[in-house]
């Protein structure tokens, strides 16, 4: 619990590919900071943002740090609501099997690993966004 007991629902909406701009990395940093303050955090990957979770990223050629493995730490930060926009994947000829598997450990069930990833339609996503206190777009 945060000190004054106020927990807000924060959704971070990731819309851009991982390395062309600083948005993806900045979003990830802010997400980790928000989680450290015990807020209810969820992430959405939509538009080119779905590329952020692609498996097998290689960044040597562009001289950038490959931060894709950091998404696997989200479970440790108790961030286990990851929404992937189904239409955005389809428009890019991708499917869930092209993306990293992200899991969290349920302490109440002897640390059983559970998937954090939810594939949702845009209509469902719009509904989920409506239920947030704060939506931040990156």
């Amino acid at each position, binding site marked *: 619990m945060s000190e004054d007991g106020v927990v807000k629902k924060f959704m971070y909406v990731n819309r851009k590919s991982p390395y062309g701009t600083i948005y993806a990395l900045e979003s990830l*940093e802010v997400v*980790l*900071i*928000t*989680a*450290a*303050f015990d807020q209810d955090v969820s992430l959405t990957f939509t538009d080119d943002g779905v590329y952020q979770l692609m498996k097998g990223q290689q960044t040597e050629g562009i001289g950038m*740090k*490959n*931060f894709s*493995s*950091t998404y*696997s*730490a989200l479970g*440790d*930060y108790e961030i286990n609501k990851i929404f992937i926009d189904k239409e955005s994947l389809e428009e890019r000829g991708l499917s869930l099997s092209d993306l990293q598997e992200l899991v969290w450990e349920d302490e109440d069930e002897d*640390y059983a690993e559970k998937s954090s990833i939810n594939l949702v339609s845009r209509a469902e996503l719009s509904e989920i966004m409506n239920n947030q206190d704060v939506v931040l777009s990156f």
Partner: protein
Amino acid sequence: MSLEVNGKQYEVDEEGYLANLNDWDTDVANKMAEIDGAPLEENHWEVINFLREYYEEYQIAPAVRVLTKQIGKKLGKDKGNSKYLYELFPYGPAKQACKYAGLPKPTGCV
């Protein structure tokens, strides 16, 4: 700023964190601890080594809450609590242990 270890200069920031991750070795860690006045022992190394492995895998230094939980899972409940970790690293387990481990200051570090 720089830190001298075995006659070699290492670049550090104003808080004493290594500028280059790859500069790290155990002598650097021991030197930092010596300067802070508390030599490293086996219990410190368990945490420092854990942090280096965590960074290797996830490319981040974990926040103190995550560190505490993961240490508990890995080294046992008697070590996975703030009291134990603060006794080892009185300047803050994540901050101080990350410094000795040659990692950047943890994201969301409080």
